[in-house]
């Protein structure tokens, strides 16, 4: 089939900044790119529940426990919204989960680091969610309608996540010497992996060019990383926490901070499965999936044989 005509309509829509909707014609590569990106994003939310979930039962106050529960729950919700956005592209949640569990699909490398102390919950909220928000705010204007709508809802819900993290860090930075040390240690450990979250430098990012061309992404990895550093540094200074980068200096000319690039060799190593927790994260997802199978099967069997809850009697 000659798709030139459709391609023109598609390009014209993008040029007018109109959203592409599920039933619109779209180039195969656009569809593939979206499925890959949205599902990676969804998997990151769901795997991201684990390092923080690790501290729910040990949260040190009732308030902290409720907040953390609600936050990790939100992440599950965000995974859910994103899976359904991906499903509008013609792939099922079953297939998407299968891709995660078999290691075909990736998720954000940040979640392969361990949460060692309660301060890590603060650092994740402040730094990791702070970095994620940069990306997510941009994605509210992404060119695929269901993805953009999911991001609008996600951004609305995320707004408390970074604040709760920063609040934890503030309390600890102003607390006992032990708490201060714990908070500083958490920043030292999470700073570099957080900078890696924006992806490789623009020059070495294989998928970036298409993503920008198709208006899936509207800003580059390096632009977002720079903005994150600019916003985060003063927040750290305010509560007396430092960053483990001797190269951090204000650059008057670019009106931003100069900073040292993270260790991209480590990034590649973690992405390819050798982070401190890669195996644990996947093992946990697989276990939850396997242990949930009998529940899903039973629900299906009950629905098939019993009219009580059937959709169409």
């Amino acid at each position, binding site marked *: 089939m000659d798709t030139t005509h459709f391609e023109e309509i598609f390009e014209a829509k993008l040029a007018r900044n109109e959203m592409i*909707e599920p039933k*619109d014609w779209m180039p195969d590569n656009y569809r593939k790119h979206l499925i890959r990106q949205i599902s990676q994003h969804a998997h990151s939310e769901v795997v991201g529940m684990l390092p923080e979930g690790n501290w729910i039962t040990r949260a040190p106050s009732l308030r902290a426990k409720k907040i953390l529960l609600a936050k990790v729950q939100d992440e599950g919700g965000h995974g859910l919204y994103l899976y359904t956005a991906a499903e509008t592209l013609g792939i099922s*949640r079953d297939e998407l989960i299968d891709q995660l569990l078999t290691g075909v699909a990736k998720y954000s490398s940040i979640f392969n680091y361990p949460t060692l102390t309660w301060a890590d919950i603060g650092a994740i909220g402040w730094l990791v969610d702070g970095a994620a928000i940069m990306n997510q705010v941009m994605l509210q204007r992404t060119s695929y309608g269901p993805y953009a709508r*999911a991001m609008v809802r996600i951004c609305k819900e995320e707004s408390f996540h970074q604040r709760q993290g920063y609040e934890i860090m503030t309390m600890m930075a102003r607390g006992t010497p032990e708490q201060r040390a714990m908070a500083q240690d958490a920043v030292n450990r999470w700073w570099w992996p957080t900078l890696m979250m924006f992806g490789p430098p623009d020059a070495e990012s294989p998928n970036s060019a298409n993503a920008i061309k198709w208006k899936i992404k509207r800003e580059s990895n390096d632009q977002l990383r720079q903005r994150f550093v600019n916003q985060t540094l003063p927040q750290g200074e305010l509560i007396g926490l430092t960053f483990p980068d001797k190269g951090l200096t204000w650059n008057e000319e670019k009106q931003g901070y100069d900073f040292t690039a993270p260790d991209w060799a480590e990034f590649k190593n973690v992405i390819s499965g050798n982070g401190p927790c890669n195996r644990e994260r996947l093992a946990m997802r697989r276990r939850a999936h396997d242990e949930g199978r009998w529940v899903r099967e039973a629900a299906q*069997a009950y*629905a*098939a044989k019993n009219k009580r809850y059937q959709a169409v009697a």
Partner: protein
Amino acid sequence: MEAIKDSQGAVWEVFIQAKPGQPYRHVGNVHAFDKEMAMQNARDVYTRRGEGTAIWVVPSNYIVASSPEDIGSFFDPANDKVYRHPTFYTLPEGVQHI
């Protein structure tokens, strides 16, 4: 009974009414195996921040959708029927309650 294959359930469309009297708005999807579960899942996923007072759920495969190719034939014919809008009409100055 046919063999059961593990699955995440069917996709349902969720509509929420924010307040009584307002129209139901599409808010997203849930997966569920039956209608009671779909209703509960919609409640648990989409009304955690006081977003609504009523919910509709419907299996996605029961939604009938127009196609992008229909845009011209469906919607353009309405463009020249300006007399359907109140601003089309000329009224004498000073008239009230009309």
